[in-house]
């Protein structure tokens, strides 16, 4: 892992294709037929992975992300001795796209994992204090591992949705303390406490030809002028991450408004899927 951030190699997209995409955008449409603020089709399989303590497989159009939660037990951070821990990791294995080489998470993967982490953390979706087993000694650790199986743009929103749905389906194993050491009893389980009202989601936008588009495809991300991700929970902004380009203040105000609108719809979809877990493992 290099410690330097380097301008990324642009995807080779024929000039003609670029112009076509822009022209369609200027006409108020998108190359896959969506409106500017439409999300692609969302398919959510909740809790399909038997070996995980919670899981979800999300398809956002052709973008596919698998989330698995494993619950561990460890020491709390010294500054939050009575709170459990959340650790989010995202990997883009080489299955996901022809451009990806195997290796540890690069800066893009690290950034997405950190944005997902902060979005969940500041939403009050989780009750970190309920993850305490023995203050100062043992707390539950929620490992959320996100695997991108197919990358067609907007990994942020797909990853966040997958992580949140996986957490919503998570159960905690019982832990007993024996001779000052924790003993994990995997057979006895209680559901992880979450607050559905505060369900955190991110909404990502790109700017192409002065238009703001939600849920960009990979092609749109590759030609966009700017990109920004807004994390929302219960109509409050809980994270922002501007990545590509620049925005005017008016752009930002506009995007805030739109992201709260879109949040409402998306939240409904996700909550519905959480209510209908699916024990068949399908991609």
């Amino acid at each position: 892992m290099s410690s330097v951030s380097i301008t990324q190699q642009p995807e080779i997209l024929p000039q003609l294709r670029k112009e076509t995409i822009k022209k369609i955008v200027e006409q108020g449409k998108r190359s896959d037929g969506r409106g500017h603020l439409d999300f692609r089709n969302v398919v959510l399989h909740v809790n399909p992975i038997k070996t995980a303590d919670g899981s979800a497989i999300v398809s956002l159009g052709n973008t596919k992300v698998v989330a698995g939660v494993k619950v561990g037990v460890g020491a709390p951070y010294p500054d939050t001795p009575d709170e459990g821990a959340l650790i989010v990791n995202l990997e883009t294995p080489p299955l996901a796209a022809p451009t990806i080489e195997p290796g540890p998470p690069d800066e893009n993967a690290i950034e997405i994992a950190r944005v997902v982490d902060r979005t969940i953390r500041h939403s009050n979706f989780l009750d970190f204090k309920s993850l305490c087993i023995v203050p100062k000694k043992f707390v539950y650790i929620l490992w959320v591992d996100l695997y991108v199986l197919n990358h067609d743009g907007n990994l942020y929103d797909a990853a966040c949705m997958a992580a949140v749905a996986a957490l919503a389906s998570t159960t905690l194993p019982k832990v007993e303390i024996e001779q000052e050491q924790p003993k994990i009893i995997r057979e006895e389980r209680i559901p992880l406490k979450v607050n559905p009202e505060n369900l955190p989601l991110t909404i990502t936008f790109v700017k192409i030809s002065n238009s703001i588009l939600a849920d960009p495809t990979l092609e749109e991300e590759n030609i966009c002028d700017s990109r920004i991700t807004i994390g929302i929970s219960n109509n409050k902004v809980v994270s922002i991450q501007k990545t590509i380009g620049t925005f005017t203040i008016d752009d930002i105000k506009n995007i805030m408004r739109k992201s709260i609108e879109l949040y409402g719809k998306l939240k409904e979809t996700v909550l519905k899927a959480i209510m209908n877990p699916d024990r068949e493992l399908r991609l």
Partner: protein
Amino acid sequence: MQYVIDVTKLTPEELRAKIHELAKEGKRIDGRAPDQHRPVRLEVGVLPNADGSALVAYGDTVAVAAVYGPREVHPRHLALPDRAILRVRYHMTPFSTHDERKRPEPTRREIEISKILREALEPVILLEQFPRTSIDVFIEIIQADGSTRVASITAASLALADAGIPMRDLVVGVSIGKIGDLVIVDLNRYEDAYGDGDMPIAVMCRRGLVTLLQADGQWTTEEIEKGLELAFRAAENIYRMMRDALKSKYIEASKIYQQ
């Protein structure tokens, strides 16, 4: 998976004893006959970006394979003038095992299996048809319940066919195990953990060739011969399913084209 006993109620020692006790009567913990494979599920073309892809489930073991190529080699000095190079990666997701979270970094076990899988596929692919290129096979284990490497071979084989890579035959992976004196087909994770031997095998059915063979435990030569025989028989069934899966995919595809 349904078990004939409540596995969650037993200590490891009891489970081990129970598995051996059942084996003495020719029975298995999940009710299968010794030579019975778990249900096999095959799906082809599951990942849109890949040139070829497949999901293979052997019971609760689920492997996903993607194939990219033939394509340019980076860095170039790895290319061979007379044939394609093959690159294979076997990887388990951190949440794929019943144990605690597995670290995502490749373990020594994963490195060995990646090599073994490459060497099982190399004799099958017509690499000489694509000099100076690379054919890449990437495998993720999403859920593990024993026999992951042989499920991976089957998934890789299907994904290669899906990518249109010419092969001498379809390779099929089957695991053979041993509990006491009983030789069994397709180990689940309990049989893997508490049995007396494990022998993963991959075969080219039509040609009667073994392309992957490992063994662990203690085996007489007779047991090994018995295991090989059972493996070929089980592979024959899976081979037919693979051909069907590939055929049905192309039928579906041609339907789409006709629309």
